[in-house]
């Protein structure tokens, strides 16, 4: 299919990008606000001869992904915040067993059932993980339909390259909004590298086992953890993604991702017209967080103004990056409410003045 420009809902863009990335196995359970994605794939998998299974639970869905990944397929699941909570067990096992998978999370308000509005109060959930053990999951945070498509496509390669689950952290708004998308060309499944660890019957070779239980002495589990840690080090070194927008001369740099970054960008454009030197730093990988790059901006003397659709989660990574190199300000909106760019302008002006009148100044 030629890569023409198409007007698509964010959730559909994810589904189409997954198919083009060679995903032929989708397992999921209904939850708002991401149902358009499984619905798209239910139809699309029929067209491409793939597998779509509506699982009995989120727990079952992530473990079907685990099985399909162990068998060598490019597999994915999708959900929203409370459903991702249920998948945490499986994510820990995927990490322990070093299996690739792509997990789409269209975040909603919490805690508990919360609401179905585009909150991003699950930064901790996606970057720290709720599963057990010393593990990390690469987390990609798109800010629109085009990026939803590109990052979903890239996530499958990232997952295979490092044998790790990769999460796409969107939100209810990004999933629903329709925007123009240009898709990458579909890959030829035959060109994917052969995997030397998959379970497909032991004809002509020794049997393989995929497991995460290491009871052996001689520090078997200790060594397994060190091996995982070495891998996480390689991911941190090579896979950090971010966007700088008008930061070169900025006296205040707003840090925001996803939908929040869209609002912040509009506000930056507006205050620039009034001559205020304000820019935007947008982390695209939430883990690994772009620590060095943000630190470099703080070292140049910019104040840092963090804006989140939560009461303050990513701000902890910002604090760890910036420390006392620059003043840090925070403005957060909980419960799935979306502030206007004008509200953000007030926050930016307040941060520029350093008066802490809008939001709050972070005291270390």
């Amino acid at each position: 299919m030629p890569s023409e420009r198409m007007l698509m809902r964010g959730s559909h863009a994810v589904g189409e990008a997954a198919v083009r990335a060679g995903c032929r196995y989708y397992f999921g359970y209904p939850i708002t606000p991401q149902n358009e994605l499984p619905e798209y794939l239910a139809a699309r998998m029929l067209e491409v001869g793939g597998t779509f299974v509506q699982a009995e639970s989120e727990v079952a869905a992530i473990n079907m992904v685990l099985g399909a990944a162990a068998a060598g397929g490019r597999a994915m699941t999708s959900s929203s915040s409370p459903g991702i909570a249920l998948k945490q067990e499986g994510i820990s096992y995927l990490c322990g067993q070093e299996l690739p998978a792509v997990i789409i999370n269209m975040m909603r308000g919490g805690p508990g059932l919360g609401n179905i509005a585009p909150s991003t109060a699950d930064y901790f959930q996606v970057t720290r993980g709720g599963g057990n053990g010393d593990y990390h999951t690469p987390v990609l945070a798109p800010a629109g339909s085009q990026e939803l498509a590109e990052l979903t496509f890239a996530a499958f390669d990232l997952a295979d390259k490092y044998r790790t689950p990769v999460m796409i952290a969107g939100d209810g708004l990004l999933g629903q909004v329709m925007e123009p998308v240009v898709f990458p060309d579909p890959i030829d499944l035959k060109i994917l590298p052969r995997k030397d660890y998959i379970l497909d019957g032991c004809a002509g070779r020794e049997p393989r086992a995929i497991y995460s239980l290491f009871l052996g002495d001689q520090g078997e589990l200790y060594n397994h953890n060190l091996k995982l840690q070495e891998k996480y080090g390689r991911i941190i070194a090579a896979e950090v993604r971010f966007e700088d927008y008008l930061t070169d001369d900025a006296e205040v740099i707003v840090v925001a991702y996803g939908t929040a970054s869209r609002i912040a960008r509009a506000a930056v454009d507006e205050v620039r017209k009034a001559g205020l030197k304000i820019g935007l730093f947008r982390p695209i990988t939430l883990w690994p967080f772009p620590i060095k790059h943000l630190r470099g901006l703080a070292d140049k003397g910019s104040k840092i103004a963090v804006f989140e659709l939560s009461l303050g989660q990513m701000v902890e990574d910002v604090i760890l990056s910036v420390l006392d190199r620059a003043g840090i300000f925070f403005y957060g909106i909980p419960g799935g409410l979306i502030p206007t760019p004008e509200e953000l302008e007030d926050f930016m002006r307040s941060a520029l003045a350093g008066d802490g009148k809008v939001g709050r100044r972070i005291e270390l």
Partner: protein
Amino acid sequence: MSEAKMKKVFGRPASLKPAETHYCPGCGHSIAHRLLAECLDELKLREKTVGVLPVGCAVIAHKYFNFDMAEAPHGRAPAAATGIKRVHPDKLVLTYQGDGDLAAIGTAETIHMANRGEKITTIFINNAIYGMTGGQMAPTSIIGLKTTTTPEGRASSRDGWPIDISRMLAVTDGAVYIERCVLTTVKGIRRAKKAILKAFQVQLDGLGFSLVELLSPCPTNWKLSPRAAVEWVNTEMIKSYSPGVIKDTTGYEDK
């Protein structure tokens, strides 16, 4: 007799590795492992099989079985096996699960695997107790059984009733063949082997889900000698779990 005249009449199945197991003396897992391995050998399936292991005493059985195996989180073997089978519909996919794994924490996964009619075979080891964690009440513990969490014996008023998951699964349209056997008599063991062979055939023929439940002794946690544990299965356990074919819609002639 000279050595040249000796004929090999018994050996280790190719589907078992030459490994010593960690199972207790008198445990039914060893018999179940051997039966499963003999069946795979006889059907020449060893190199076409992917097995999924439970959390429980058999969690490290990949050290004993000589074919591809995955470990799943507790109770999730049916889901993992579903993922594997959907990627490799031409392979034999089996789960090997105990009562806690299959009938407690993984009940939902078990029922829906059966109900989807997944072309998967489950070997279900029912020993009425949690073995690996040290002898707690299982969903299948029979009334009166003393366990570390039912010190006065399982009482229905407090602890509920033993669950007969095989009969529950039989009402799903996706389950094609379900049989319960004992691992505690010669006749029962022979019957169990036939049942496992048939369950695999069901899968190879693409008919749907098949399960063989094996009543299996756990002398260590029942606090019985191996011999007494065998007797307990044959006299007490079968009162709650009657051996026999529970469901068979295969249409095969051998009934």
